[in-house]
């Protein structure tokens, strides 16, 4: 396993073994918060941060914790990173935090994170584990982002609305109105829209691969 190349790790995380599209992990937040780009990006970044942090620490302690207690130790690490992320989001992007609500603390239950700790970080050196966390988190974030963008365009006819919640006042004017004022196609921003858009995307890496 030590020979895993960073290229392979990146390809796995972003495409071939994409946590959302192929492994079908973390679908609950995927469906719940992708009503707009800013929500998707907020949760995607938070998840990536937790995953990169937990992968790094899990890899650092991999030789010091025995088989019997490794799961509780991993869970403690993941919970710590999630709570820290939650506090930081409250401090710096409070309004986005109130919109994402329960899904930030729920990152702790995202199977993807414990899954990567078990399957990768506890068997690999620190640097490549951090990279794996970034790539897996990035892959998840990109899927969130694309579903968020599709639903925002279809549902509200805008793109990048409310980005100032994440980037501060410079982003006030980033909103693109694609179909003019007053456009709205409610079903795309409601839960059924999430299922439709996500369903259309599922397993696309396998379908795109030559048989």
């Amino acid at each position, binding site marked *: 396993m030590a020979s895993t190349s960073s290229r392979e790790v990146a390809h796995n995380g972003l495409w071939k073994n994409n946590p959302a599209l192929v492994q079908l992990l973390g679908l609950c937040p995927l469906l*719940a918060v992708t009503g707009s780009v800013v929500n998707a990006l907020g949760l995607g970044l938070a998840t990536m941060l937790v995953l990169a942090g937990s992968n790094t620490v899990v890899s650092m302690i991999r030789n010091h914790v025995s088989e*019997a207690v490794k799961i509780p130790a991993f869970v*403690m*690490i993941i919970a710590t990173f999630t709570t820290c992320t939650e506090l930081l989001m409250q401090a710096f992007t409070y309004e986005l935090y109130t919109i994402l609500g329960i899904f930030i603390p729920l990152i702790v239950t995202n199977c993807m994170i414990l899954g990567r700790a078990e399957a990768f970080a506890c068997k690999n050196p620190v640097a490549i584990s951090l990279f794996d966390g970034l790539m897996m988190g990035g892959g998840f974030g990109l899927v969130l982002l694309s579903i968020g963008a599709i639903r925002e365009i279809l549902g509200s006819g805008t793109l990048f609305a409310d980005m100032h919640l994440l980037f501060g006042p410079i982003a006030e004017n980033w909103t693109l109105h694609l179909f003019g004022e007053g456009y709205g196609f409610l079903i795309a921003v409601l839960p059924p829209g999430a299922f439709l858009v996500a369903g259309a995307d599922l397993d696309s890496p396998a379908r795109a691969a030559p048989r």
Partner: protein
Amino acid sequence: MATLGKSISFNSVVLGIFALITASLLAGTYLGTKDRIADAKREVAKRALLEIIPLEQHSNDLLMDTLPVPANFLHTLGLDDEGGDINIAREGDEPIAVIVPAVAPDGYNGDIQLIVGINIDGTLAGVRTISHHETPGLGDKIDLKKSDWILGFNGKSLTNPPPSQWKVKKDKGDFDQFTGATITPRAVVKQVYKTLKYYNEDQERLLKAARKKPAVTHQTSEEANNG
């Protein structure tokens, strides 16, 4: 057996060290972000206050001009022993409206923090949700960011609708509920009604106290900050 005992105690020590490290990390982050989080919350509360009674409708510093909630009414308003502050909006020296903090304790997921703006004639100037933990997509429509349901309180009073109608439609009252969520709007309607009742009972004393207290203007509060 000896090895089992040894491995149990070794593992407990490892886990214990882990718990210590993670707890201290958490404590550090908490201490580091605590002030900023309090600031962010205050900022949101401030914006909500100014939404209910916009700047052009009052002349004092609404945020600094406060009176404490009297101890005997804390329970009615759902507040705990820490109490709360009632903000007073004035035109010149004369109070025109008060904004009362209240907590609806029986939301679907615990407390719903509200602020209730009441004009001195007893009609509602507006209600806002400050924080809640209601189900996303169902109960969170009490938040103005998600739905304008809460604006439906504007202009209502203890007699309009009559007391028997201060309920959600499902309970044969006057207020809409949302599809799939009755408990949340029921809790909010009930607490807004209680808050109006509080104002009705405490009105005389409250307004007297407000008139006795000099108005806090933007200038005086700035001086206070500088001093």
